[in-house]
Each structure stands twice: as C-alpha cells, then as structure tokens.
C-alpha cells in the first residue's frame, strides 16, 4: 500500500515538473518575456494618453490618470528598442512626410517586429540616458527625437531640434512596478 502511494505521488510530481515550466511563459503562444512596460513622463511632468487615436501628452488629474498610456518596450540591442502602447499592439514609428518626419502609431504587434528587417527599421528607437532622464532618437530618421510640446494636451511627435526650448525631449522612463 505505502509503496504504491509513494510511487503515485512521485509520478504526479514528476509530471507536474515536466509540464509546469513550459506553459507559464507562453500564454497563448505570445512572448511576454522580452516585453516590459515602462512609465514615461516628460521633465515637465506630462504623461501620455490617447485622444482620437492620437498620442498626446498632458496633465492628468484624479480619475483621468486611468487614461495614462504606458510604453511597452522590446529591446533589440543595447540602446536600441521597439516602443509600443496598448500591450504592444500599437507601435511608434517614424514616417517621412515631405521634409518633415512624422510620428505614427501603427497597428502591429511589437513582438512580431524583427531587428534586421528593413521594413521594421522605422519602429526602432535609440535610447540614450543622461542622468535621470532618457531621450529617444528614431533609428530610421536620424537626428529626429521623440518630443512633447511645452503646452499640455498637444500631440507627441518628433523634432530635429532637440535643444530648442519649445519642445521637450527629455523623459523620465522607469519600469512599471
């Protein structure tokens, strides 16, 4: 009796060991392991939210703080990252429009983006840290940085004059805990 009970529990724990570790990291076959959520706010304390499907930065009070968009990050190389929102379902990209570069939100899955793909280059940003703040330069549009306007509730965009006083390119960027 005891022997069979012992063997039975051994078999169960062995089977649990076999199948436990494989399911936990791959719910629905996704790769959440490489994606991390970060909180982003500019040095003027503006946070990101969506207004008519456009990413804007502003001051969210009280119950509006629910609207805050966190940034989903998939690192590609050191300092090279893909940036997305909404669980990585909408990705930030740089698109050329005339002489200007435009920030666009594309409905692609951040974990489907590939590092060496020429097509996916527009989604790549170069992250540089200086002291407590971080800046993001588009890899496809060199010299263009992610920015917010000084005024509240204006679209998040790209600027090629990061030193100019009318745009904010320095962000606090911290892992969401």
């Amino acid at each position, binding site marked *: 009796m005891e022997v069979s009970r012992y063997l039975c529990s051994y078999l169960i724990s062995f089977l649990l060991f076999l199948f436990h570790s494989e399911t936990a990291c791959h719910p629905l076959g996704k790769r959440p392991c490489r994606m991390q959520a970060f909180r982003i706010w500019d040095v003027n304390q503006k946070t990101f939210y969506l207004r*008519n*499907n456009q990413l804007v930065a502003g001051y969210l009070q009280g119950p509006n703080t*629910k609207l805050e968009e966190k940034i989903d990050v998939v690192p590609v190389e050191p300092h090279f990252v893909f940036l997305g929102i909404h669980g990585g379902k909408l990705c930030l990209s740089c698109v050329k429009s005339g002489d200007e570069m435009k920030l666009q939100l594309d409905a692609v899955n951040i974990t489907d983006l590939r590092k060496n793909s020429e097509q996916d280059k527009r989604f790549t940003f170069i992250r540089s840290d200086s002291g407590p703040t971080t800046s993001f330069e588009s890899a496809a549009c060199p010299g263009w940085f992610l920015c917010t306007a000084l005024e*509240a509730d204006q679209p998040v965009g790209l600027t090629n004059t990061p030193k100019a006083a009318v745009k904010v390119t320095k962000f606090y960027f911290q892992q969401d805990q």
Partner: protein
Amino acid sequence: MPLRLRGLGPEVSPSCVLLKFWGAMAIWSMLTVGVSAFVIQPEEHTVAAGNCHFRGKHPQTRLKVEGEPVAMRCPQVPYWDSASAGVNVTWRRNDSTTIPGEEKTRVWVQDGALWIVPALQGDSGTYICTVRNASYCDEMSVELGVFEKTEASLSLMSYPQIIPMSTSGLLVCPDLSEFIHNKTDVKIQWYKESVPLDQGGEKFLSVRGTRLLVNNVSVEDAGYYTCAMTFAHGGRSYNITRNIKLRIKKKEEETIPVIISPRQTISASLGSRLTIPCKVFLGAGIPTTTVLWWMANNTHIDDAYQGGRVTEGQRQEYSENNENYIEVPLIFERVIREDLHTDFKCVVINTMSFQTLRTTVKEAASFSWGIALAPLALIILVLGGIWIHRRCKRRTGKTYGLIELKTGHQDS
C-alpha cells in the same frame, strides 16, 4: 453602493466626518463611472449633427473647484489656431444653451475658449465645442465637474507628479495656459501642505512662471503641494489653485549582468529530454530591468520551433546571499540530430550592457550508459519484484506495474 450609503448616512450616523467620507466616496464613484464609461466608448464615434462631424467626447473630465475661474480650450483646435482667422468656434451646453461670445456674463466664449468666472457646482455637465469654417465643421464634447472645496475633493482633483529620488526635478502648476497667455510676469505661490514655500532658496526655486525646481529630492519631499495665482476679472480678483501629489521614486539600481551558465558545450543523448538553464548574475542590481532570452541560429525560439519541440521555460528571479540572479531555461522535449548543428545563444540586455553566450549540444556517449545501467535496472527490477511479492501478495500485479514505470524512467 456608496451612493445608497450616503443617503442613509444622516439617519444611521450623524457624524460629520463620516458624511464627508461618504460624500467623497460618492464623488469618486461617480467620476470613476464617468471615466470608465467614456473609455469604453469607441473613439471614432461619428454622428451627423446638423452636417457637423462629431468627433466624440474628450477623454479627460475637467475637475474644478467652486468659486475659481475656469477656462477650457476647444480640444480639436490646436492652441495656436484658436484665434486664427476664418475659423468660427462656438460652445453650447448639451441642453442646447448657446454660450454668448461676450464678456458681460459669467459664462462666455473668448478666442475659442470657454470661460466661466467664477465656476459654480451647477456648471457641471457636458459642453460641446463646434469649429466651423467655409469648408468643414466638427464638434467635440468636454465634461466639466465643479466641486465644493473640501479636503476630499482636493485630493480627488490632484495631479500626480513624480521626481526620481536624489535628483533635482520640476513641479509644474498645470492647466493655466489660458490665464497666463500674453502675460510676461506670472506670479505663482507654492505651498506644501498649506505652508508657503521659500521659492528663491536652495531647496525650491521658481522657474519660468509655472514651474518649481525642487533640488536634491528626498522621501520627505513627497506629499501634497498647492500652487496658486490670482486672476482679475470684472474688478474682482479670483484665486486659481491646483493641487499636486508629488511622489518620490527610488532610482532603480542597475548593474552589468554576467552570464554564468551554460557551458560552451552540453552533452545530451539523442531522443532524450534536455534543459539548458541560462543563468545571469546581477549582484546588487535589480532584476526587473534586465531582459533575457534564447535564440537558435539567430532566430527567436518561438519562430525557430513553431511545433514547440524546443521552448523557453519560465523566467525565475531569485537571490542567493543577497545577490540577484535571473534564470531562463531552454527546454528540448527530445534532442534530435539537427540540434547538434544548431548555434544556441542566450541573450541578456539591460540599459548598461548587452551580452550573449553561445552553447552547442554535443551527442553524449549514451549507449555506454545504457549498457551500464541495463543490468543494474534488471537487478533492481527483480529484487523489487521479489520484495513486493513477499510484502503484499494480493496486490503484486498492480504494484509491479508501477515499479516497472519507475525503473523505465531511470533507464532513459
């Protein structure tokens, strides 16, 4: 639920504190319901309203204190366009009351913005802004909530702001642009928990109007701040206040990760199950900012093995002797010949470093182990069989089967 309780409040308990609490809860629940209701609404909601394109509700509800001036910009007009020629901006309440375009009343429209000086609780509600020119027309609605000035309502209306620990950062007095527009000298007084701050000192410094520089922040700097300015209208002076809840965030410490395992080659026999852990040493660094994954011939494991024969296991974070480690195993359901020619790589990235470690699978001299283990297994089987036969004669068949299973596993 809180609404019902609020109604019961005076009968059950006449305590003033309790009443205030339930009141705050009711405000909170109303607002939460309000916010979630329009979050669920589709953003691209378009309704033809007298040939005008309705662009939906602005996602933010504006929350203001009773007695203070309110100015709301039309959300679909960029601020620099609001006074531009050829665009006609009008406002109305959703009960169709059109707001006059002159300054003689308490509520008026000026340069495309809606002004209410001073705001009353009855002004709470939905306002619709219409922008029209010769070729187009669009509308957007904005929700306004005006509340009595109580401690509960102030904390509810507060703006959260964060400065990382041990750095110098800015506090910003928000939503003042309409009031300070065209003004060069804006005087803003800052308070922390109602105590006026010395804004020219070493700790706090007033910067360009609406901002306050806080030097070398520490945990003690967290808390509620108020910024206030005065606004003159119609021969009267009004206070405009904003409440800010400052949080101090501990800076995450990062270290350069070191991959300490796997070895360069791993021995495994064909057909067997194999787990290769990739173990990363972080020392005092926090694990959350470090990302770790496996690749096979420079392809992600999920893409390379869509059938799932080889998978990445669960990430584990743990500490040994106050030093942090992360581990992600690579799991082979069964090793096949192809794996011997595959370049497996563990990749680790954080903001300070990027590292990889290659490993290859080598075929183990598995047959010799098999030969060595086979007689041993046979002996265990026979001895076990005899022992069980002796101990419980009636159940021999069943127990023997299980013994066989166990040794069968040892064999492989």
